[in-house]
């Protein structure tokens, strides 16, 4: 765990402690379980986003994809009677295809990620709304899918299964991002794509793979969200979720210029954001201030982090010089 992540963890704990002192019910197992459920949902989304951000890209269509795939998933299993073991991989595949399309447009046709995914944001929401004719996709009363519900909305030993899913995904993705060759390429491309190309890396494929990973993880979280709300009005479902995901990554130390950030960071960023939402409700802060609190904390977090790293760099430089000065004459 880097020092940056540690700082974020401390912030989370301090905020948690303050809230717990004001309202001890914050620490009730049921509250922690509820919040960790949402951490699971948004965390999966944020990890996907992180893979794209690390390459220096951005994925703005996340919220719309959550709406579109959520609508399709509910429609498939609730209305069209498709079995969920068929629908689930189908949706994941669709997510992958969307990611592939974005990656293709970005790497092969050289379009800017912001532009491609902005168009995605508009198009997918439009398609979702058209698909339901602006209606709501939902389950009928009493319609049940016990195994699916257990996997998505259920709990094991009091821990939401969505949170467990996040942990598993996070571990796998940590290995991929921080230990595998692929992860290393992602970092390299994020910093200097041209140089990576000169080193014989098929940068196009690597970047495309990042978008596919993002697409699949987004699809997965779309299913989780669908099973959480159990009803999706495509005009508003998932709106701004891309901002949550990006905010989580940024809080977690990712640079939108690419090439920086850690998986632990993005998880901690998600945790902090959800803690803030929980806090607004638990402390009875007017809901209208929800966004303002979130924005304020992100800004402060980023500021502190930035100032701190300036300070650290200066200290490091001093130290290095001192060491260098001591060592040099001996050479």
């Amino acid at each position: 765990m880097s020092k940056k992540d540690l700082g974020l963890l401390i912030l989370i704990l301090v905020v948690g402690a303050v809230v717990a002192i004001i309202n001890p019910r914050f620490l009730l197992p049921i509250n922690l379980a509820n919040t960790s459920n949402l951490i699971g949902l948004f965390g999966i989304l944020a990890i996907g986003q992180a893979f794209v951000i690390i390459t220096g890209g951005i994925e703005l269509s996340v919220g719309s994809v959550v709406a579109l795939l959520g609508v399709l998933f509910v429609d498939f299993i609730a209305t069209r009677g498709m079995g969920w073991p068929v629908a689930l991989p189908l949706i994941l595949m669709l997510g992958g295809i969307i990611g592939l399309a974005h990656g293709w447009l970005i790497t092969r046709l050289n379009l800017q990620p912001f532009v491609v995914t902005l168009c995605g944001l508009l198009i997918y929401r439009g398609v979702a709304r058209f698909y339901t004719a602006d209606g709501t996709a939902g389950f009928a009363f009493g319609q049940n899918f016990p195994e699916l519900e257990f996997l998505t909305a259920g709990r094991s030993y009091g821990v939401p299964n969505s949170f467990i899913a996040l942990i598993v995904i996070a571990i796998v993705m940590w290995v991929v991002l921080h230990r595998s060759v692929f992860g290393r390429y992602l970092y390299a491309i994020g910093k200097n794509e041209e140089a990576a190309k000169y080193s014989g890396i098929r940068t196009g494929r690597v970047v495309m793979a990042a978008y596919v990973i993002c697409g699949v993880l987004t699809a997965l979280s779309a299913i989780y969200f669908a099973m959480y709300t159990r009803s999706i009005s495509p005009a508003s479902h998932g709106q701004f979720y891309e901002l949550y995901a990006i905010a989580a990554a940024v809080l977690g130390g990712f640079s939108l210029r690419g090439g920086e950030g850690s998986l632990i960071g993005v998880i901690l960023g998600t945790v902090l954001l959800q803690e803030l939402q929980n806090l607004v409700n638990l402390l009875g802060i007017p809901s209208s201030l929800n966004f303002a609190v979130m924005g304020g904390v992100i800004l402060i977090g980023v500021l502190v982090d930035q100032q701190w790293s300036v300070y650290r760099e200066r200290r490091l430089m001093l130290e290095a010089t001192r060491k260098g000065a001591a060592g040099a004459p001996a050479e």
Partner: protein
Amino acid sequence: QDKPTLAFVVNGASDFWKAAEAGVKKAQAELPNYNLELKYPEQSSVAIQQRLMDDLVTAGVKAIMVSAVDPKTSTDGLNKIASETALFTTDSDAPQTKRIAYIGSSNIDAGKQAAEIAKKAMPDGGKCLGFVGLLGADNAKERIEGMKEGLAGTKIELIDVRGDDIDQARAKKNVEDALVASPDVTCMVGFYSYNTPRIYEALRDAGKLGQITVVGFDDDPITLGGVKEGTVAATVVQQPFEWAYQGMKLMAAYLEGDKSGIPENGLIIIPTKIIGKDDVDAYAANLKAMSGN
């Protein structure tokens, strides 16, 4: 484009308007000489709705029935439309404009009916918590106001209303958080159509179905299911089907010069109804029949 067009402009995409769509459809069957349309603005915002209506006027629409996003302050914009075409309002009225008539129900009355449900379900009093999409929206404010009026002088109290900006995940989390933050709450009110189902599900997940009185608005299938099951005390339903059906016929008649359907004060109130356990089957059947035609 020879047939005159009548448009029904809603205030945003929502399932609530599906029934109105059915009403328009039924009216269309009876008005073959007209072209009836129901229009959703792509966002629930004044500017976009205004623009939509401007464009409809340009496209030559003869009469518009609108559920204005913000009727109180959109007087000028609505008057501009009214000066170029026959304008009717629905859902929420704009009495200061030059609209010809209002057809719809009263949200204040609906709030009062919700209070009735609460009083009946909790004769010994209790604490209620409300959930709504947009706290600032007129319909939300009126429903809340109506309910508070209805509860005045009783031992039941509406202690807070939480907003969720029409984000369903937040709507559900709000209920979950409320269960944690206010353990003494005995009743929950879902002011928007999707709030009641989210309350229902959060309570079910927490194993508190039946322990907390749920007062609903509108007729989401989950809400109706809850009413039937007995876990939702009752729900207050509006009749958008009737608004649309009657409204379209009224507009057609008006264009043909028949003004008899318009009362002196310009208000055609189609009252809201309380749907309890006993009425729910009939209501659901009717609903199905309407959308099925």
